[in-house]
Structure formats: structure tokens, C-alpha cells
């Protein structure tokens, strides 16, 4: 089976950082860097003209249009692009907000290039990747959240719940299909129903919904 490469965009206001990361990440033949931008506005301009990347590495602290504003804009114009936040702002408030805004992953800027590349691959294949730290932050936040947000009233069938649980466990569509003895197309159908019912914009949004509304049991997988 021929593996088509993942199209990656890098958005960071530090030119040398972009160059360095590009050089290191391009060593992985599955990843092809097709776009570089110095801030959010540059990115949006380029998206209007050229090819759309599958995955974005996005800095938060940038001039003109910050990563926060860029993420908001992209969720409207290009919800299919999976965003990995790569930033020095590695605090709880930022992580929670960016995940809520639909970020598929969140990494500290001084992560090992290997880890960045692995995250790109996982996000491209499964829609999201939250490492242990991010998971803990979401879990802690969820406990607080119950007090201030009313739970969403969404009717989810038991089959959909199974699918959602497996999505949260980072299984791919094919793997879920095998596990539940159904076809991948049916899995996609369930996923689309879930997206529609929960109002989530992507898989990352589904996971956040599942965690915040305690649809899936957490402790078994991340405890």
C-alpha cells in the first residue's frame, strides 16, 4: 500500500526556528513541509492562494495575528486542518483554552524534534494526540468545569458510545472497525453522527466533549 505523505505547515515568527524545525522534520519521509508563515495573517493569505496543509504547527505568540486568533479563524474557514500548538506558553489556562478552541495537540516549544514529528504523524492518522500532561490538565479542568457548565443534553446510542470510547483511546477508523466487527464506513457514519449531535468541529472536539461530559470512563485508560 502506498503511503501518501502528510502535508505540513509551520507558522512561527522566528525565521531561524522555522528553518531548523523544517530541516529536522523533513528527515521523516512521511512528512512534507509545504508551507511556512511568520504569523497568522501570512498563513491565512497563503491558504487563500495555495495548497492546504493537513497539519499545522502553530506558535501562539506572534505579531499581527496571534496563534489564538488564528486558531479561531481557521476553525471557521478550514476546520479540516489539524492544528498542533507548539509554544512556550505551556500553562494550564492556555492548554485548556486552545483544546477548547479545537487544537488537535499541544506541545512545549522545546520538545524533542522526534516527539514533534511523532505528534504530526499521530494527529494526521487519528485526529488528535494529547500527551500525559495535556490529559491531566483536561481531567483536572473537567472536575472544576462540572460546577460552572451545565452538561450538554445529547442522546448518544450505545454503539456511538462504544465508537466514541475507542476514538478517545486513539484507535484509528480501521482499528475501531475491526474491534467492533463493523465496516470502516459504518465507523465513519457513527463518527459523523457524533460530530453532528455534539456540535464538535473535529475529532479533538469529540474527545473534549467525551471527557467533559464523562461519556467515557477515564481511569481505565489514563489513570
Amino acid at each position: 500500500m502506498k503511503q501518501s505523505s502528510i502535508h505540513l505547515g509551520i507558522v512561527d515568527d522566528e525565521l531561524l526556528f522555522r528553518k531548523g524545525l523544517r530541516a529536522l522534520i523533513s528527515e521523516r519521509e512521511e512528512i512534507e513541509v509545504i508551507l511556512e508563515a511568520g504569523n497568522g495573517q501570512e498563513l491565512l493569505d497563503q491558504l487563500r492562494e495555495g495548497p492546504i496543509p493537513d497539519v499545522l504547527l502553530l506558535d501562539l505568540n506572534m505579531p499581527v495575528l496571534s496563534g489564538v486568533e488564528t486558531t479561531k479563524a481557521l476553525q471557521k474557514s478550514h476546520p479540516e486542518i489539524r492544528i498542533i500548538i507548539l509554544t512556550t506558553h505551556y500553562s494550564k489556562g492556555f492548554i485548556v483554552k486552545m483544546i477548547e478552541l479545537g487544537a488537535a495537540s499541544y506541545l512545549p516549544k522545546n520538545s524533542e524534534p522526534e516527539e514533534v514529528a511523532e505528534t504530526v504523524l499521530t494527529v494526521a492518522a487519528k485526529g488528535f494526540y494529547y500527551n500525559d500532561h495535556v490529559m491531566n490538565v483536561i481531567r483536572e479542568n473537567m472536575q472544576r468545569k462540572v460546577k460552572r457548565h451545565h452538561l450538554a443534553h445529547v442522546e448518544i446510542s450505545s454503539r456511538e458510545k462504544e465508537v466514541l470510547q475507542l476514538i478517545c483511546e486513539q484507535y484509528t477508523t480501521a482499528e475501531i472497525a475491526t474491534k467492533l466487527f463493523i465496516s470502516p464506513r459504518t465507523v465513519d457514519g457513527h463518527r459523523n453522527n457524533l460530530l453532528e449531535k455534539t456540535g464538535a468541529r473535529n475529532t479533538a472536539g469529540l474527545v473534549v466533549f467525551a471527557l467533559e461530559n464523562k461519556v467515557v470512563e477515564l481511569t481505565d485508560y489514563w489513570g
Partner: protein
Amino acid sequence: MDQVLLQNRELAALVLFGVSIMLLLALAFVLFVSLSQRRILKEQMNAQALEIEYREELLRSTILTQEEERRRIAKDLHDDLGSKLNVLKLNIYQVKKFTGDSAPAEELIGDVKSLLDQTIHTTRRISHELLPPTLQDFGLPTALEELCDGFQRTGSVDIHLEVDDPDARLPQVNSELQLFRVVQELINNSIRHGEARQIGIRLHHGKESLKLHYYDNGKGFDVTRLAEKKGLGLKNIDSRLHLIGATIRYESEPGAGVTATVDLNPVS
């Protein structure tokens, strides 16, 4: 006989005249003294008012200058130092490609990487302590949540934060910053002076106004003596709130904890 009488009368008139002159003089003297005293008092009061005004102005500009400096240093640290350190780290990884399997090079590179990570961490910590980036990007509720989380993590105090609207923003960024600093100071006071074990904060947003309720279960203080002995911390709180047109009211008794209510209402 008549002449003696006449002489006596003249004498009496003379004495009367003299006495009244002296009385008048005394009156004039008293009047003069009291007037000049009043004038001196008034001048003293004027001077005092000027002094107070001057001190307030000084405090205000000190706060503003301090915040501006903090912001500038945080930005320089983060934007210039921090981002260059991250570039350095990437470059070290690229160097690795050219050193082959040399063990000493491997070890050296490992050391440099871990040193870089520590330095990146320190730079970020200092920059965030100077000015929490959460405040600017997401507003007061999120920044307070992070602040409380930090204190909670120390394990010495239990902080409960309740927010009616986690995404609420105030029209003035400066108001958010000053309120953040005020809560920071209140928590510090509760822990350091009040030895509080529990702290509660409640944020209630109006259309453009904000009410902040704060309480702790610490040692408390005598509110009636607040006017005479205010510590630097409380004065600092007053000045910051004065700066943004907000007020604070304390309720406390020795041994009964502290309750404080902050009111920000720019319209009134």
C-alpha cells in the same frame, strides 16, 4: 466741693477712656492672633493636602511605571531570549548529525541540551511571573484560575474560585491587570499575615461592571483600626483600585477571617 467733684468726674472719664482703649487693644490683639493662627492652620492644611495628593500621584505613577517595566522585561525575555534559546536547541540537534557516533560529542550535546532546557524553563518562569500571558490573551477569570491553581499546588492552602462567566473580558486591559494584582496581594496577605487555610473568590460580571467577593478563614484584623495602621500591601491595593476607579470594603474581626468586596463600576 464742686471742683473736687468735677476733678473726680474727669478722672473717672479719663480712667474709663483708658480702660476702653486698653480693652480695644486687647480685643484687636486677640483678633489678630486668632486670625493669623487660623491662617497658619489653613496654610498647613493646604500643604498637607498637597503632600497627600503628591504622595498619591507618586504611588500611582510608581505602579504604572512598575507595570510598564515588568511588561517590557517579560516581553524581552520571552521574545528575544526565549525564542533564540529554542532556535539554539534545534541547532544542537542538527549538529548531532555531523558528530557521528562519537561518544564524547554525544555526551557534550546531551549536557548542552539539558542546560538549554533548564534555561528555557527559567526564562519562561520569570517572564510569566512578571506578566502572566494568560491575562492578556484570555482575561481575568482564566488568569485567576491559573493563579489559584499555582497556590493550590503548594498544598498549604485550599482556594476555591467561582466565576459566572469564564470568558468575560473587561473593556480596559489595565483594569484586568490591576484586579489580578489586587487578588494576588489579597491571597499573599491571607497566607502570610492571616495564616489562612481556606480562601474563596467569587467573580460576578455585570454589563461593564464587576463585583469580586473574597474571603479567608485566617486570623483577621480589627477593621476599626484600619485607618491608622494600613500596611504597604493594603495601601498598594487601595492605589491600584483607585487607579481604575474601583473600591474595596473590608469586613473582619480578630479571629474571624477576612471578607473583602471589590466593586468596579466605571459607569457610576
